[in-house]
């Protein structure tokens, strides 16, 4: 099971690298919000897989908090972008 978790971890890490690429490239601020949201999710998935790969169960509810923070952050920055566009 450790091997499978490690393979899956490699796949998720590649996806995370691609999301970082979109975060850097971007063109608009909303694209960065989408990429950052995906990156937080991929971090959570990777941490779950890392927990399995190392059979180390210390993370627990930290990941729940992280996914909720990603949600709040995406909503807040999207609303901010909307307001900024309205002022133009």
């Amino acid at each position, binding site marked *: *099971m450790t091997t*499978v*978790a490690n*393979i*899956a*971890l490699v*796949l*998720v890490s*590649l*996806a*995370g*690298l*691609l*999301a970082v*690429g*979109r975060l850097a*490239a971007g063109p*608009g601020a*909303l*694209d960065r*919000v*989408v*990429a950052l*949201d*995906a990156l937080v*999710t*991929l971090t*959570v*998935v990777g941490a*779950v*897989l890392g*927990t*399995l790969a190392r059979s180390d*169960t210390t993370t*627990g*509810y930290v*990941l*729940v908090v992280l*996914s*909720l923070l990603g*949600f709040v952050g*995406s*909503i807040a920055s*999207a*609303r901010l*972008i*909307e307001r900024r*566009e*309205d002022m133009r």
Partner: protein
Amino acid sequence: MSDVVVDVVSAVLMLVGAGFCLLSGIGLVRFPDTVSRLHAASKAQTLGVLLVVLGAVLQTPAGKAPSLLLIALFSLLTAPVTGHIVARIAYRTDAVERRRVVLDELATRLVDERPAEGRRPDDREPPAPR
């Protein structure tokens, strides 16, 4: 015997979930505009998280399962909300590539509801200006 079955099921779930995450990463890089990138990213946020977490739940002792299931529940609840708000703002700030859109029902509605056009008396009131 049943241990082997549980291991195989959980391995398949995790690998398929990680594959979906990778696909959504590829889509995030290659898709042309914000809403289609949002479409790709939400695959990782729902299906990827759900499958990986289910595979992990099968491998963890019962005491550790609730936090993993909470992660799956919250991402199922929050991904549609984020997607809706980001897509709405993308539409209103013209981050959508219009020539790629096949059917845009909202645009015709927005034109119909403009107060300057002579509206029929039974039409709904136009949305209040923000």
